[in-house]
């Protein structure tokens, strides 16, 4: 009894939390469903309709508004065959039907007593098209994996790459420049993102480990104030340095090169990375370093055999944060890499500008999200800690 009451008193709380979670998850879910739907279906209806029995809706609207006069088969009125493909061809959009229904019939009566809603008009037309067999809708699968193939190879046409281009003697014009290594494809962009992100993670991590060790276990003049300056450098916005670096790169021919981006990300990862490694390394047990010293160990040994192995949790969090930061970055890629070596974010932004349709955009977005999602679900603990600690950066 008591347990039940306790449970009931918590029902509103559960509803609020589940509602919030739904709000948070639905946009992503919708994009995922869209990425799996054929282009025509995405254009015709919202992603949520995959779970609705679509045809019934149109049939219901037809029965309510039209069946009384036109009959259940659509052929009851002389000379007006609602299932004729020619007639349906005149109503490619629902507004055209709406305009017709607003007109009176030849004998002066209103065409319909109450006007159907816009959605009902759409449903009715789609139902009639299906009845008449004029829509490709029936042959279209509900869900398909082909959007992913198309976006990976950089195909943005109306069909699918596998049908139109691969192994076809006379490929469609949209096929030129597509393929697994195409510059417009997300496959190539994925590889480019990896090429950018891995060194841009390792370099700052390595430099920061050295510097963090020096700030923790070395005694040198300027140790204190140099570190304070470093704390201050953390807030310098990336925008602050874009223009001069861009000019330097242009004169050195580094624009569009991976090396330039690696170094830029290293520069911007460092202040925070050093801050974190220093705080972590200086909190390591002091006795360990004392006894290492007494055993005659050099700094080099203490660094590689003590400081680095003991700092793995901090370095892992930092590495995940830096990797995702670089992976998800658009601005630096836009300025320093551009179209020469398109990365994922650059390629998606480019796709948005080309109005290729939501089905391809959604698939492209998911290609770019795969790796962060895997990292998130497999290393959630390090991941959250890394993002938390580093959220001020950049």
């Amino acid at each position, binding site marked *: 009894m008591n347990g039940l009451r306790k449970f009931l008193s918590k029902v509103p709380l559960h509803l609020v939390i589940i509602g919030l*979670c739904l709000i948070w*998850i639905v*946009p992503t879910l919708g994009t995922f469903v869209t990425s799996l739907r054929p282009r025509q279906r995405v254009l015709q209806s919202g992603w949520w309709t995959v779970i609705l029995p679509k045809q019934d809706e149109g049939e219901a609207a037809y029965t309510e508004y039209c069946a009384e006069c036109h009959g259940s088969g659509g052929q009851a009125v002389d000379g007006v065959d609602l299932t004729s493909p020619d007639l349906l061809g005149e109503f490619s959009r629902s507004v055209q039907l709406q305009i017709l229904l607003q007109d009176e019939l030849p004998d002066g009566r209103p065409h319909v007593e109450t006007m159907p809603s816009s959605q009902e008009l759409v449903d009715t037309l789609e139902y009639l098209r299906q009845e008449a067999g004029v829509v490709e809708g029936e042959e279209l699968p509900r869900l398909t994996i082909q959007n992913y193939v198309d976006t990976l190879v950089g195909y943005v046409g109306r069909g699918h790459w596998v049908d139109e281009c691969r192994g076809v003697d006379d490929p469609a014009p949209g096929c030129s420049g597509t393929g697994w290594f195409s510059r417009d494809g997300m496959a190539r962009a994925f590889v480019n993102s990896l090429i950018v992100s891995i060194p841009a993670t390792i370099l700052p991590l390595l430099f920061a480990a050295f510097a963090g060790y*020096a700030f923790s276990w070395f005694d040198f003049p300027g140790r204190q104030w140099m570190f304070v300056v470093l704390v201050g450098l953390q807030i310098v*916005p990336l925008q602050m340095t*874009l223009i001069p670096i861009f000019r330097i790169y242009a004169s050195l021919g580094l624009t569009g090169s991976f090396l330039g981006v690696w170094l830029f990300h290293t520069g*911007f990862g460092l202040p925070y990375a050093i801050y974190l490694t220093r705080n972590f390394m200086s909190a390591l047990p002091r006795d360990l370093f004392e006894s290492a*010293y007494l055993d005659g160990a050099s700094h080099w040994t203490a660094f590689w055999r003590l400081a680095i192995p003991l700092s793995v949790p901090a370095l892992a969090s930092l590495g995940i944060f830096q990797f995702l930061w670089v992976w998800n970055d*658009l601005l630096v890629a836009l300025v320093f890499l551009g179209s020469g070596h398109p990365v994922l974010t650059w390629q998606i932004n480019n796709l948005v*500008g080309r109005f290729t349709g939501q089905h391809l955009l959604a698939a492209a977005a998911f290609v770019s999200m795969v790796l962060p999602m895997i990292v998130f679900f497999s290393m959630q603990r390090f991941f959250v800690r890394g993002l938390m600690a580093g959220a001020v950066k950049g």
Partner: protein
Amino acid sequence: MADEYQPPAIMKLAGRQAWYYLLPAIFVLLIYVVYPSVRTLYLSLRTDDLTAWATAACVEGQPCWGILQNYQKAFTEATVVFRNNAMWIALMVPFVTAAGLGIAVLVDRVSYESLAKAVIFLPMAISFVGASVIWGLVYHWRSEPPQIGLLNAILNGVGVQPVPWTTGGAITATLAMIVVGIWMWTGFSMTILSAALKGVPQELIESARVAGATEFQIFWQVTVPIILPTIVVVLTTMTINVLKIFDIVFVLGKGQPGTQVIATRMYIEQFNQNNTGLSSALAILLILAVLPIGWVNVRRFREQEKIR
């Protein structure tokens, strides 16, 4: 203080070697952070072709700020970006903080806390560009049905005229983009504040409860004062992040001059218009806005060091 602190013996070992460890980092930082920052300050005081001080860009009979002419231009030609950035901060920072705190308090009371937190936190893993695509679909608008955007389909369903969220007006579009920002960043404030909540001593709450305080009173008079420092950290961090917002506006606000913020306008001025002076001035204004927060960070750090 650091002076009273007795350094471990290893620290006296080969002090000069420290520079080998520091050199790569210092080298990269000087080239990539320190020098360009100073250079940007200089560029902001020059004409666009860098041949003269910005004073030369003054026009007879129009207001002239001398060497600060690029800043005059920023305040007169780019006023809208300051309005938009202010709007972003005024709406997003308090909302993200409050929502994060609210969710942290709620999920603290259920058994599936970690699952709910993972759901809210997930958007932080994806890029702003990816989020822009996801929300571009939510906001999708057509002049006639069927609406394939969820939001407009709902409006259509309840008989309200669908709204062109991201292409209608600058204010509507900015609000729509702020919602995306909130969706992405609430997980951040929730996680930090949730950790702070767990650190509130349970005895304090119990004794307040025994003394007859309501849950509401306990929250406002016991919990909130204790976690206030953390709330301030979230507020300042979010302010910095929102000041620098770029990707969402660049992708979702495409072709809408009225939605631009400091960072996007700066990019456009430099890389599309070649207005180096104005662009650099905007960068400097950005860091001026962030500077007080950086100062607070340094002070907080020094206090922490004293306690150590």
